[in-house]
């Protein structure tokens, strides 16, 4: 899922401190799972903002709403009737949802309530780890299912580098060396022959470098 983290309340207050009616908009998918922007987090932020404004001596109405997703037109339409009542929307969705909301309701400022971090998985409650950087050309078949682009700090395709030490990355002992993991896995799968082959130079044009990307499926468009 997309993993995000709550922005500090102080930062959000900076965005909305001059507003009178604010909608805190959550999302029921990824940000709910990583406990950053779901219904619960919406409630907590709304509460915090109410206390803040009351303490400032201001009467500010804070509304709460959580949509199924903010990255699909149909769900965003659900607030069509009420959107223009607000001076601002604080969206707790990932960067995608925040932008889609802003595009849909372009006369209202839409502020981010979270920092979107990466695509990752729940290793355990309270710990989410990065696994994918959407390079656009997946090579997991050759690396035993472990991604050298998202898990190697230098995204080396013919690793490990000389800094790999006792299974850890040179930049931080807590980060496993991706290539150590790949080698261990290939060994377990009896496919070290994949390691011996030189990984060719990568085409980064399907990555961020090639510019904003899209996926078009004409077979499902009419």
């Amino acid at each position: 899922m997309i993993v995000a983290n709550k922005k500090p309340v102080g930062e959000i207050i900076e965005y909305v401190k001059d507003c009178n009616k604010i909608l805190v908009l959550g999302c029921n998918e990824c940000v709910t799972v990583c406990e950053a922007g779901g219904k619960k987090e919406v409630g907590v932020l709304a509460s915090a903002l109410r206390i803040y404004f009351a303490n400032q001596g201001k009467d500010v109405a804070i509304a709460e709403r959580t949509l199924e997703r903010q990255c699909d037109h149909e769900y965003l339409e659900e607030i069509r009737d009420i959107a223009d009542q607000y001076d601002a929307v604080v969206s707790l969705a990932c960067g995608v949802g925040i932008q889609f909301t802003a595009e849909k309701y372009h006369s209202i400022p839409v502020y981010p309530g979270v920092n979107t971090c990466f695509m990752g998985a729940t290793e355990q409650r309270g710990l989410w780890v990065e696994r994918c950087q959407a390079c656009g050309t997946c090579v997991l078949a050759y690396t035993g299912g472990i991604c050298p682009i998202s898990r190697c700090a230098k995204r080396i395709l013919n690793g490990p580098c000389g800094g790999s030490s006792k299974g850890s990355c040179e930049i931080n002992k807590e980060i496993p060396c991706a290539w150590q993991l790949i080698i261990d896995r290939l060994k377990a799968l009896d496919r070290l022959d994949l390691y011996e082959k030189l990984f060719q130079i990568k085409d980064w044009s399907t990555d961020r470098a090639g510019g904003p990307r899209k996926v078009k499926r004409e077979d499902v468009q009419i």
Partner: protein
Amino acid sequence: MSAKTPSTLEKVMAAGHLGVTSECGPPRGSDPETIKHKAELLRGYVDAVNVTDNQTSVVRTSSLATCIHLKLMGIEPVLQMVTRDRNRIALQSDILGAASFDVNNVLCLSGDHQSFGDNPQGQNVHDLDSMQLVWTVRKMRDEGKFLGGDEIKRPPKMFVGAAANPFADPFEIRVMRLAKKIEAGAEFIQTQCIYNLDKFEEWIRQARDRGLTEKTYIMAGVTPLKSAGMAKYMKNRVPGMDVPDEVVKRMADTPKDKQAEEGVNICVETIQRLKEIDGVKGFHIMAIEWEEKVPEIVKRAGLYPRPQID
């Protein structure tokens, strides 16, 4: 193996002599005098001088510019290139830049992560990795073509090298990795500095068994220890470095004012032991900020004078 490029380093080793290189770290400023001074200390004692490339991710004068200074002084440089800071366009461009000054040696590396240096907030590039860079330079030289496919006018004539670390983890694939680098086109290999001779011998034995020592010139890296403190630091704080306890003890047991001398002794002894090992084709003496010791080390190790090859 006969020399394919005008590189002095290649010619020396192709003729069957042990090659000797050392290192020159560019300054954190634009004064060329520091470069000239360091390089002058090494003149005549080495076949080529490596110029580091923003080592440890700390901004210094560029390796390319420093190589040009050396070239103009009549000292043969080895251009070290890391893939951390430049994309494939800049890398190929710098190769051409170096070739335009007839810099004939290049060492391809990944580079330390930028979090170690003075700009931890910067981006890193790694458009290519070190092996892919080796492959690229070989393509530019042997096919005379850019990565994009177009012809290069006056292709670079460079002797291409890579680094190897027999002491990094995981040990079991270090020789496989060496094989990969050679397959990618590495013609010479400079290793991480050696203190653990047993482990090095094991690594090179495996390399010999795979026939790798015949396909590339392996240059053993050595670094003289300045003090017991340095030995301990390298043992505990530098990833991929193997300093056995006996070495630390030997330094620690020496009185402080004699430790530097003992460090040089250990270095010379290490070279002499390494000379006996089949497959070692040269030495890379890394004496950072201690370049003045290199002449003594080269002489005492019986590597002076350097052979003159035409």
